[in-house]
């Protein structure tokens, strides 16, 4: 290339935003080369296994580990007695990793073994003898809340029967609880009594939401190793490395600075890795006791038994409206089955109350939850975080209210849907808001209005197949959620002498595609191709602070952070170029791997060459920047009010079904979705995210059901726990509403949780549209639907306790 030609080179403007960019980790995963935690083995490593309770609720009378300890190949056998400094774990600090004196659920951890092979560890578990004294089992939260219910976490008594002296500040695991109420939430805005008085129509119904679980394809696991100086290295699947590092340090009574967490690629998270579970702490105890690295992997059965579930909820909703279609009030009582211990499931009211208070304009709202202890599995966080449950009730009531006042359900929704600029009773302020666009788009593309009429007309026609169409909408945080004092994320960006970027981010990749989208945002700023980026995001010794993957926050928060770092790098590069080429920085820009003239795109110098010039001089300089982004959201006040997220995401989904009235089989034929995502960054990524979420919602609505009977899980396997399989996946028509959020990275908002939220609610409405029968309990399995169609389902009613 001669000099004249080079000078004349013009780089055309281009953008990566909105393009279909394959996930950076896809080739490795598709070819089976990704090294998950399951594939990592350290030399000298032992295998850890846990002995779980074979009772649901019992006192542990004795544990005999002598035979297990004597088995050749066993290096450590531990029980609570071996760990005198055990600290309680969990969101409410109400359980010990290794149970002390009492088991409260099927999954409870009694002892653990580290041995030279999994087989030896299994054999050792069989040699441990435990004596129990059974206690009555409470498996129904309605029983647990009765005044005379036996207590799941009773206060310990002294030998003479007197109350042990309880020190202030002690945790529930130590001092117990005088009742079975794990948590309470009470929220109010406006005055529901006034709201009810202003109503022309009031309805009240009870809804029942069941247990489902994440079913990550990669089972849970951990590898722990203490080095000779006592530093701890963990290979962990956590979604929250930094906060967990601190917690682990507390549980081990060690300096957090000596803990390093490496996160290998994980086979699914969906919220399940948001809390610390007993097995993780037990793995650390084993490594400490055995003085060898210990690897612990769940079996699939264990994954079912001992991973968290979605929060099961019994919910009574009372709502009203005026004849003209104006919503007047909502009053909600929920009973959350907390299970034996408290994890994030108990805190789903944070999200549920947002939906009740703010999905549509609700002038008066009252929300009450009691999360009660039972001997059931305990619930954690799960994509959607209570919003599936809340939306299930609300959106059925939207249809029912519309029917009562004889209004078209679409018109009724549009009348109550908010616009940008509104602030809700709970203080959520909608800076960008594509709600009505979502409703209209989904309705038009699915031909909703016509089909609703047609299906009703065909209900009594001959034939066993009835068609139905149903709509539901959702509101969810889309710009992080300020639940900790900070909701921020840090980035370190480094450029090398070939203009390649190393993007070091605090945000974890859990399969959601964050690596790709963050690279895209950085490359957009620096005018480089995606292939120029290497992402480092999995080592607390390297990456900057972040509060974890949750609340659909990564693209928004980590995205803004990455852009911040990229902008600083760009400023530095342009400053250097401006000096060198004697022009103003504002005359220059970066594009296609070149510094260019902003006015006409003419290439000034190849970026890699400029960087090399910068490096190879006696006053060498490096382009290396850092940025920390903290969103402008605020903490909720004591009454749960405040603008917790920097942006809010909206979505409407229309579900079409065919109900076979001979069998009760519901076939989901089509889902038409419209999502306000702010802006599409990676079209391929966001489509994948939506499709996956829809299928997760479909499983929740139709097939998935973790059956718990008297505290016993009946179907801890994929034969009887039915995930949706490929032939059942409906046709999908997905539209994106680009409301260009002012605070979002390139205008984008979070969307990770959104697509699974509406499906069950819309399906309920579709089944009603098809058959005229409303079903208040999930999942819509053939037998449940068939029973309801045959009038064999008694009306569900849970009488809420009196508020105030």
């Amino acid at each position, binding site marked *: 290339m001669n000099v004249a030609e080079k000078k004349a080179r013009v780089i055309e403007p281009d953008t990566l935003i909105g393009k279909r960019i394959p996930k950076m980790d896809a080739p490795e995963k598709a070819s089976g080369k990704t090294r998950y935690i399951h594939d990592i083995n350290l030399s000298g490593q032992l295998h850890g296994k846990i002995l779980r309770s074979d009772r649901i609720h019992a006192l542990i009378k004795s544990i005999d580990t002598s035979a297990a300890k004597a088995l050749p190949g066993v290096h450590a056998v531990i029980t609570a007695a071996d760990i005198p400094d055990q600290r309680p774990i969990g969101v409410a600090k109400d359980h010990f990793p290794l149970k002390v004196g009492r088991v409260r659920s099927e999954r409870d951890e009694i002892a653990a073994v580290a041995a030279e092979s999994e087989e030896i560890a299994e054999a050792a578990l069989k040699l441990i003898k435990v004596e129990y004294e059974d206690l009555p089992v409470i498996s129904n939260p309605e029983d647990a809340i009765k005044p005379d219910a036996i207590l799941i976490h009773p206060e310990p008594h002294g030998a003479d029967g007197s109350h042990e002296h309880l020190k202030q500040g002690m945790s529930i695991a130590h001092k117990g609880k005088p009742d079975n109420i794990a948590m309470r939430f009470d929220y109010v805005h406006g005055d529901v009594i006034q709201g009810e008085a202003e109503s022309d129509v009031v309805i009240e119904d009870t809804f029942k939401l069941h247990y489902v679980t994440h079913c990550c394809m990669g089972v849970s696991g951990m590898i722990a190793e203490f080095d000779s100086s006592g530093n701890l290295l963990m290979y962990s699947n956590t979604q929250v490395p930094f906060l967990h590092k601190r917690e682990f340090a507390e549980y081990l009574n060690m300096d957090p600075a000596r803990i390093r967490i490496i996160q290998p690629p994980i086979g699914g998270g969906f919220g399940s890795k948001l809390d610390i579970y007993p097995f993780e702490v037990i793995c650390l105890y084993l490594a400490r006791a055995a003085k060898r690295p210990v690897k612990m992997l769940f079996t699939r059965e264990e994954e079912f038994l001992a991973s968290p579930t979605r929060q099961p909820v019994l919910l009574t909703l009372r709502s009203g409206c005026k004849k003209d279609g104006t919503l007047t009030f909502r009053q909600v009582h929920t009973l959350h089955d907390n299970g034996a211990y408290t994890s994030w499931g108990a805190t789903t009211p944070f999200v549920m109350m947002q939906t009740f208070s703010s999905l549509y304009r609700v002038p008066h709202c009252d929300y009450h939850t009691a999360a009660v202890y039972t001997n059931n599995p305990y619930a954690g966080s799960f994509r959607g975080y209570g919003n599936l449950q809340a939306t299930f009730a609300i959106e059925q009531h939207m249809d029912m209210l519309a029917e009562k006042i004889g209004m078209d359900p679409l018109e009724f929704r549009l009348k109550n849907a908010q616009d940008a600029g509104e602030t809700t009773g709970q203080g959520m302020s909608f800076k960008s808001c594509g709600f009505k666009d979502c409703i209209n788009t989904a309705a038009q593309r699915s031909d909703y209005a016509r089909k609703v009429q047609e299906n009703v007309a065909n209900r009594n026609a001959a034939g066993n197949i009835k068609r139905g169409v149903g709509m539901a909408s959702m509101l969810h945080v889309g710009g992080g959620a300020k639940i900790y004092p900070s909701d921020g994320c840090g980035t370190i960006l480094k450029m090398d002498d070939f203009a390649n970027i190393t993007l070091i981010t605090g945000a974890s990749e859990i399969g959601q595609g964050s690596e790709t989208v963050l690279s895209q945002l950085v490359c957009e700023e620096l005018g480089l191709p995606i292939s120029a980026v290497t992402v480092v995001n999995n080592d607390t010794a390297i990456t900057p602070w972040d509060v974890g993957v949750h609340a659909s926050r990564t693209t928004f928060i980590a995205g803004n952070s990455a852009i911040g770092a990229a902008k600083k790098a760009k400023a530095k590069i342009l400053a250097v170029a401006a000096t060198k080429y004697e022009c103003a920085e504002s005359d220059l820009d970066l594009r296609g791997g070149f510094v260019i003239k902003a006015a006409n795109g003419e290439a000034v110098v190849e970026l890699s060459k400029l960087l090399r010039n910068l490096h190879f001089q006696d006053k060498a300089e490096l382009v290396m920047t850092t940025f920390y982004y903290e969103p402008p959201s605020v903490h909720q006040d004591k009454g749960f009010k405040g603008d917790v997220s920097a942006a809010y995401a909206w979505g409407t989904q229309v579900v079409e079904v065919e109900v076979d009235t001979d*069998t009760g089989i519901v076939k989901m034929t089509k889902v038409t979705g419209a999502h306000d995502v702010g802006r599409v960054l990676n079209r391929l990524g966001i489509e994948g995210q939506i499709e996956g979420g829809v299928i997760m919602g479909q499983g929740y609505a139709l097939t998935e059901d973790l059956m718990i009977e008297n505290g016993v899980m*009946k179907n801890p396997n994929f034969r*009887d726990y039915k995930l949706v*399989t*490929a032939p059942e996946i409906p046709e999908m028509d997905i539209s994106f509403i680009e409301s260009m959020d002012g605070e979002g990275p390139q205008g984008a908002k979070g969307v990770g949780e959104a697509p699974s939220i509406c499906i069950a609610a819309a399906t309920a409405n579709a089944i009603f549209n098809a058959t005229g029968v409303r079903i208040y309990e999930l999942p819509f399995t*053939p*037998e449940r639907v*068939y029973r309801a169609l*045959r009038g064999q389902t008694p009306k569900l009613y849970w009488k809420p306790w009196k508020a105030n």
Partner: protein
Amino acid sequence: MTELKHYFAPTSLDQAVECLKDGDVTILAGGTDLTPQSQAGRLKIKQTLMNIRHIPQLSGITLEGKEIRIGALTTITEIMEHPLIRERLPVLVVACDHFASDQIRNAGTIGGNICNASPAGDMLIPLLVLDACVELASMPENKIYRHCMPLSTFFVGPGKTRKSLCELVTSVRIPLPAEGHVAHFYKHGTRPALDISTISIGVAGTFRDGTLSNVRVAFGAVAPTPVRASQTEQALEGQRLDEATIEKIAQIARDEVKPIDDVRATAWYRKEMIHNITKRILSHVAQA
């Protein structure tokens, strides 16, 4: 844990039945039942594990006189794709099509499905209504002894059959259906693939001038074994399939079965499905 000491992979039927002589042998075909059952501790592998997959006499689908012989080792996929089956026994293809998933169909064998004797085994219901016989081989002295047993008497309980420990299932034999023969199979599960039947129904017979004769009805997942429904068969025999008759027979079918409640469904729902699906199949036959 297992007592497994020997692994044996015979290459001829003689070797296989000889090995079975002492009875302390677990037979391995496709392994799709054996593996999960032994891992879950529900089945104990005996001292000798005998892999029968290298015995040529156990495979193949052939027309032998007035019978179709399907070798015990024939996989579900092979049955589904075989021209002879597609042409003469299409009801088996329907059953194969609703069987598990491609991966399992490629490994699972018809012999394994029969010997596993699950009340929900999907091949068993169509085989029952096709009057299939099981061919068994053993070596009581020093010579192979073969005999056939009607499938309708083969099953005694979940996982239990009349086959002795020394016997190997070598094939299943199905009489060629005559002119006018119809056969239907319906599997009811919660999803189209990878599901265990909640109930299944097979109906066969000769359909002429609006009436069914030589009727065979079998139900799956409503009793400890797949069952022939004799009362329903009798009620159907020679009847004109008008609407009232169909309803009456569906009710007889519902009353004849005695299912249980389990994780898949309640007894009530199973009875309802027997009624509704029997009705659906008979209406279908009547309309054809």
